[in-house]
Each structure stands twice: as C-alpha cells, then as structure tokens.
C-alpha cells in the first residue's frame, strides 16, 4: 500500500524557547486490519502503519506503536517542548516496509 499516502502535520512555525507546543498529525492510510473479508469471504490481509515517530533535532518526542485497532487515516495529537530552533521530523513505518516522512521547521520568535 504505497498509493495515496499523504502525511499532514499541523505545527506552529514559530515558538518561544522552551515553549510547549501542540502538534497534530494525520496520514491518509486505509489501515486494513486483517479482520475484514472481501466479497468472496476471503480475509483481506493486514496492511497497516505499525510505527510513528516524531523527533526534534535528533531528540525523540514520541514513539508510537500502532496496532490494527487504530482507525483509518491515523491521527495523533501530542505536545512537544521546543528548546531552540530546528527541524521536527515525522516518520511513519508501513507494514510493507515503506517509510513516509515529512519535516517541519520551527523558528524561535
């Protein structure tokens, strides 16, 4: 499942040094649970994103392990401390080995 996967992240462009900011992420992915059956009664194989990480300047903010019970288009909201200006890297790991990532720059201001 590598088609139509689009990560979206909402993060502030600027923050005060040491400020805690709220980050919202969404990635379009069907998150096939492996429980469903197709029209002929055959089970549809599991295909989900199994891990999501967020790092800021190489330091970890959150590392999430996803199971099949996470909804389609996985959404996460969490808080991060911004010690200084830098890049926030978001990475999603697919069951099929694909890795999707996106980066947001946050300035001090």
């Amino acid at each position, binding site marked *: 499942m590598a088609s139509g996967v689009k990560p979206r992240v909402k993060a502030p462009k600027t923050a005060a040094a040491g400020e*805690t*900011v*709220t980050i919202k992420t969404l990635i379009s992915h069907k998150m096939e*649970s492996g*429980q*469903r*059956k197709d029209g002929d009664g055959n089970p549809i194989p599991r295909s989900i994103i199994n891990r999501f990480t967020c*790092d*800021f300047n190489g*330091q*970890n*903010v*959150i*590392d*999430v*392990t*996803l*199971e*099949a*019970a*996470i*909804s*389609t288009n*996985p*959404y*996460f*909201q*969490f*808080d*991060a*401390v*911004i*010690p200084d200006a830098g890049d926030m890297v978001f990475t999603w790991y697919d069951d099929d080995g694909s890795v999707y990532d996106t980066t947001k720059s946050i300035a001090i201001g």
Partner: protein
Amino acid sequence: MEFSRRDTLALGLGVAVATVIPFRAFAAADEAIAAFTGGADVGAGGITLTAPEIAENGNTVPIAVSAPGAATIMVFASGNPTPGVVTFNFGALAGDQSASTRIRLAGTQDVIAVAKMADGSFVQASSTVKVTIGGCGG
C-alpha cells in the same frame, strides 16, 4: 429428528466452546496487560483516559490518555479480536505525557489504559464505551 449419542455429545461440546470463547477474549486483554506489566501490581490514579460514553461508529472512536510522569502508556480494548490498540513512548522532548488518537472498537466494551511510570510502577484507568455499530467489518 432424533439425536444419536454422537450428535448429543457433539452438541454439548459446541455449547461448551461457545460459552468459553467470550471469557477467552477477556483473558486475552488480561494476558496482554500482564505481558506489558510483567506481572507487577497495577495501581489506580495518576492516569486519565478520556473516551466517549457512547460511540455511534466503532470505526473511529476518539480517545485521549494523560499520565504525568509516565514513560509509556499502552491502551487495550478488552472486546476486540486483538486486545492491543496503541503504545505511546514519550521521549526527552515530550511536552507532557498525553496524547490522543482515534481507535476501532468491535462492540461495547471496556477500554483500558495502563501507564508505566518513570520509576517503574504501573497505574491503569478504564472506561466503558457503548458502540452502536462495530468497527471490525464482517
């Protein structure tokens, strides 16, 4: 239709299996929690699980967990085919130990959040969610 001895035995066995299976599903959640805690005692308090009382659609149920001072928060759904839902590991730059997401629930059940604190102790909170339409397909 007459029941032979063999039919009766098979029927009895079927009923026994049907009664045991729901208990097994709950046991799966307990086992998953025990695997996470390593059998340690699980306390209460210090963790908040926010989930709706009634979810119309089990395919997308918003939940939020918060446990100040936690290193890891794991969420379980006791009535799902697989009890594990999500594991949050908080890193050095986490603003606070809270997160929210959307989960699937197969039916009305208890959602349980277990937090592993920085000192190695465990606390848990649970919330019952009524689900009108299950979210596991069929």
